[in-house]
């Protein structure tokens, strides 16, 4: 078990920058999630840590070893792949045992360790099947068992849940969380699903276009997004973002007018607020606009408006009803608002 340090890690293919100066210390036993849209460099970062991708620049340290030049097999990490990478010609038992076999772990330990790993992921009944005879969820658990069987320095998981159906995803997510609690092994987990990131992570790294956007606990990045990208990526629905003018603490953008913002900044800004923070009010309020559409979510009703070019959503009580094109008012108090620089997208003020 050890911490992992990335020092200015960069990956370039010709002129294309895959990962730009990734700098991060990952603590021992930490569960770190790399989050971002596809092509943002999160998988590349993980593959560089695993040794499957060359590093153009920078250093990667596992514990007190600089591993830049080490082969994947010499890094003592294990990895769960998106499509699992199971060996189709071996049984489940042989699949889980494979890392022990190639690493020349004494033979008399094999059986015990395979059984223990299989038990942790509830695979004991399937040990003599081949991967082709398993369901998606079972295959996924074989991949997990194969990763945990040899107690490595760190686990790397590359979108391990993305090939599962929604229901299975929730239960496997819980299982991974529980495994991490039991094994206490440093884990790096790549996903594009912000719910997975929020539920699993000790810390989340949000990436976009090869650049780290924000590093923080799930609460941090939810409550204090560092820029409009993070604000627009985290949360379901994502944060509402409205472009407008700020003058003396008053934000104005057509149908939206928010007063009393605690800032000295003037000029063009982007105002953000979450759908669940705003409320529908009978009259007055900071927003007044015709309803664009209304969706029933079960536990709530989602009302959306067209403001400028953007769609703004506000969560209302589950028995709230409104007709399309009906004029509705909403309260967006200054306390729930986030302000971002229009040009750079960076968060303004506190």
């Amino acid at each position, binding site marked *: 078990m050890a911490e992992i340090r990335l020092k200015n890690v960069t990956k370039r293919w010709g002129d294309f920058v895959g990962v730009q100066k990734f700098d991060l210390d990952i603590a021992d036993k930490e569960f770190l999630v790399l989050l971002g849209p596809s092509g943002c460099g999160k998988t590349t970062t993980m593959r560089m840590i*695993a*040794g*499957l991708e060359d590093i153009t620049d920078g250093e990667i340290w596992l514990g007190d070893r600089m591993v830049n030049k080490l*082969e*994947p*097999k010499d890094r003592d*990490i*294990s*990895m769960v*792949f*998106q*499509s*699992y*990478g*199971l*060996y*189709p*010609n071996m049984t489940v038992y042989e699949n889980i045992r*494979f*890392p022990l076999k*190639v*690493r020349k772990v004494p033979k008399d330990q094999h059986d015990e360790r395979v059984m223990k790993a299989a038990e942790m992921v509830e695979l004991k009944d399937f040990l003599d099947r081949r991967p082709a005879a398993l369901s998606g969820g079972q295959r996924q658990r074989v*991949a997990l068992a*194969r990763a945990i069987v040899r107690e490595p320095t760190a686990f*790397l998981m590359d979108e391990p849940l993305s090939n599962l159906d929604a229901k299975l995803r929730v239960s496997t997510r819980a299982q991974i969380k529980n495994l991490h609690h039991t094994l206490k092994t440093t884990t790096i987990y790549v996903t594009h699903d912000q719910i997975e990131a929020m539920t699993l992570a000790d810390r989340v790294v949000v990436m976009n276009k090869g650049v780290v956007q924000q590093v923080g606990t799930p609460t941090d990045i939810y409550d204090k997004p560092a820029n409009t990208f993070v604000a627009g990526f985290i949360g379901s629905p994502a944060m509402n973002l409205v472009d407008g003018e700020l003058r003396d603490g008053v934000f104005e953008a057509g149908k939206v007018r928010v007063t009393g913002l605690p800032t000295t900044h003037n000029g063009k800004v982007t105002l953000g607020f979450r759908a669940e923070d705003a409320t529908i009010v009978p009259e007055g309020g900071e927003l007044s606009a015709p309803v664009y559409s209304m969706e029933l979510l079960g536990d709530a009703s989602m009302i959306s408006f067209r403001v400028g070019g953007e769609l703004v959503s506000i969560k209302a009580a589950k028995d709230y009803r409104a007709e399309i094109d009906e004029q509705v008012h909403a309260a967006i108090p200054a306390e729930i608002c986030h302000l971002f620089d229009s040009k750079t997208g960076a968060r303004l003020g506190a």
Partner: protein
Amino acid sequence: MSGTSMIARRRSRTLATVSTLFLITWLIVAAFPFLWTVWGSFKVESDFFSRESWLNALFGVYTEMQTGAPFTGDGYYGAWITRDFWRAVVNTAIVTLCVTVISLTIGTLGGYALARSGHRYAFWILIAALVFRAMPHITLVSGYLLPFFELNIWGHLATSIVVLVAINQPFTLWMLHSFFLSIPKDLDESAMVDGCTRFQAFRWVVIPVMWPGVITTGLFSFLLAYNDFAVTAMLLSQDNQTMVPKISSFLGSIQEQGNVMFAVAAVVSATAPLFLLVMFFQRQIVSGLTAGAVKG
């Protein structure tokens, strides 16, 4: 049922009939020459090349007259025993076996590297292989002869084997490359994370999954070596001749002596293994042809 669908149905029935007739014609065109030659190889020359009537070849009039039975193995005896065709068969077996095994060994290594390397030079090697694949074999042979005479390696089976392996490489590399591409990269990468070197991952994890591709490519390597005429005819000495050049040398010497039937028997003997090959490996051959096409 409306009128139009009746018409459509009648038209599609005509179409089916036409297609079926067309296919049966093609079947005859494709298969008849072989069946006819196999049948004829058990006759005497004056039946198979009858001046009177082609029916003689069917009933073996002269065969019965000359040998006392409607079928004769004289052609086979003459070719295999009198003219030492068996030796050519042994040589062919040695050459094709060695060529297939060596081609596959170096081809799987190379094809794997080409499929897994993202570097530019891998692409250029494939393009170079494509150009090499297009070279007529006889033009290469004209490059070999003089150096081989000088080095004193002309005429040996080993020389031909090495040459055929090399000529075979471009095609083998392309085909195996496309088969390897169809194996997910996750597989060898998880093996390497699990503790294998690149070679161990290749040997223990990738190859066991690759068998169908290797077998298919092997069939095509076999066919290339087996069917070759240009290389074996020019590079092998008289004693080391394989079947195909042997048959061509039959033509020069036997036709005058009135023993064409030796050549016919030899041709049928050489076709038999191909027939068996199609029978047992039809699926692999088809998949090999399409693998190159769909991905190339």
